[in-house]
């Protein structure tokens, strides 16, 4: 009797997970099957949930844009490359200069340590829209519009404070005894940082890098304002541009959108544990 109730309960809870799974997977699976359809089949009423003539044509055209008939695949191919370049550059710069600052704030007691920490936490929350006008004015007078460098620089406004915040939380979790031992052995601060702290902080550096990469990949507002040509346009801008137009290659856009979602999904799945602790780290103090 007791056992039956237990199994019944287990079954009930399990049944509750089904709508959750449906909610999570239905939209994205539909997007995937639709991207495998031909234009004609996409418009079928009632819809073909599983295409009768599935084709990888749309994906093929993005990987080999020279053979594509429309401009959609070519734009996607180039804009995804732009996104990769820009997000990687932002990540590397942030990790290099941000982790130094983070160590200083996490471990060295000096006069303005705390005010700077709080300042950076506050700055992290300034919305992009409040910075865009001056940044736009200076970027146009320096003729930086439509160059990748303008996005790399402006992305620092949200990525760098975030890096510092995440890395400071990580450094605080490194046992202080390690540093004290090195210090007694006559190591300088910089020696401690590079020979003792950095090597044991590799997991923190990797997960922070992933986080920053995801943020930079996702960014849209600056990219919308600062880029409109293929020289620097990122994947989100390309998608937004196509979506607003009628009579373009919709299934091609769907394939492009999914491809743009694959790098962040992979990163998130592979580094899930770190990312979830990163979500909370900005949050619950180490």
């Amino acid at each position: 009797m007791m056992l039956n109730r237990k199994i019944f309960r287990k079954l009930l809870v399990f049944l509750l997970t089904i709508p959750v799974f449906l909610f999570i997977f239905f939209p994205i699976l539909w997007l995937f099957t639709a991207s495998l359809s031909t234009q004609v089949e996409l418009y079928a009423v009632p819809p073909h949930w599983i295409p009768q003539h599935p084709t990888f044509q749309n994906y093929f055209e993005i990987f080999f844009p020279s053979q594509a008939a429309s401009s959609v695949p070519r734009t996607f191919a180039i804009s995804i490359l732009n996104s990769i370049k820009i997000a990687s550059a932002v990540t590397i710069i942030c990790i290099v200069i941000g982790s130094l600052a983070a160590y200083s704030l996490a471990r060295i007691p000096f006069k303005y340590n705390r005010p700077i920490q709080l300042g950076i936490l506050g700055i992290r929350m300034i919305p992009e829209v409040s910075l865009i006008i001056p940044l736009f004015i200076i970027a146009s007078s320096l003729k930086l519009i439509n160059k990748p460098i303008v996005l790399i620089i402006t992305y620092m406004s949200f990525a760098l404070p975030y890096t510092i915040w995440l890395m400071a939380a990580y450094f605080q979790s490194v046992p202080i005894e390690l540093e004290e031992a090195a210090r007694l052995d006559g190591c300088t601060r910089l020696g401690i940082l590079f020979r003792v702290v950095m090597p044991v902080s590799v997991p923190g550096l990797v997960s922070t890098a992933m986080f920053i990469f995801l943020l930079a990949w996702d960014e849209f507002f600056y990219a919308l304002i600062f880029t409109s040509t293929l020289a620097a346009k990122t994947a989100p801008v390309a998608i937004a541009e196509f979506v607003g137009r009628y009579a373009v290659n919709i299934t091609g856009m769907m394939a492009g959108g999914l491809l743009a979602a694959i790098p962040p999904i992979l990163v998130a799945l592979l580094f899930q544990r770190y990312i979830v602790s990163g979500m909370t780290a900005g949050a619950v103090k180490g």
Partner: protein
Amino acid sequence: MAAILKSNPKRRLSLRQQDARTAWLLLVPSLVVILGVTLWPIISTFILSFLNAPTGINQAKTYIGLDNYVTMIKDRTFWETIGRTLYFTVASVGLEMILGLAIAQLVHSHPWGWKFLRFSLIIPWAVPTIVNGAMWRWIYSADFGALNGLLMQLGLIKHYVPWLSLPNMAMPLVILADVWHMMPFVALILQAALANLPEELEEAAAVDGANAWQRFWQIRVPLLRPAILVALIARTVDAFRVFDIVYIITSGGPAFKTITITYLTYLNTFSYGKQGTGAALSFLISFFTLIMAFIYIRVLYRPEENQ
């Protein structure tokens, strides 16, 4: 060694000074960048909000005091936009918190496949905002959308409906898209917090005869309070300045029914050519954010709440 350091205050002081110098050395590159890309622009924006500043680099700017703010406050569009932004914020954050807590609780009760469920939760969050928006725009499409297809096959509609052209449907549909995207963020944070809770308290309460419902509300939720607050504040700040998802799904339409405050700022600055008004609006968004940031810092720096 430590004893020597202690007995020699002069040497200790110099170490400390040396430390401070190193600290600044490490900080300088980041501080320069942060000052350049955030502090300087936000101050410029603030100054700009007191100027009459038509877009265009060579246009003359004139000081007009609080005029930008006064015009803004007198404008009905502004208040309608604030109302709409609050509608979006309260509805989407509210749904995300309720669903997020429920799903975190569901994962925590370890049903069959709970590890796979936790694993899957990160997928919607990882989908870029613009891809997410485009996906939902296609789902809502009047010509080929999955929503129409689904409702038709269930026999709920007879003809395809142009969902995004219906004035009262557009905003709820944008909210649904945002909930799909961000609910996992809340669920994952709360699930991680749940996994760290001590079990003894609830076991003791169970022994004392508290039922599951009482244990949930009187023990689990209070212990989760810091995590709930963090998720709530992070989501509220984000939702209040929503732009991307609205831009991609409805472009503010139909008939301005989904224009939010950041969208209005964007339009003023880059479409209507009124940088001063744009600056005033954006400063208002910053002001709200600053208040939220203040609460956030207060929450974070209350030592007794950090377990």
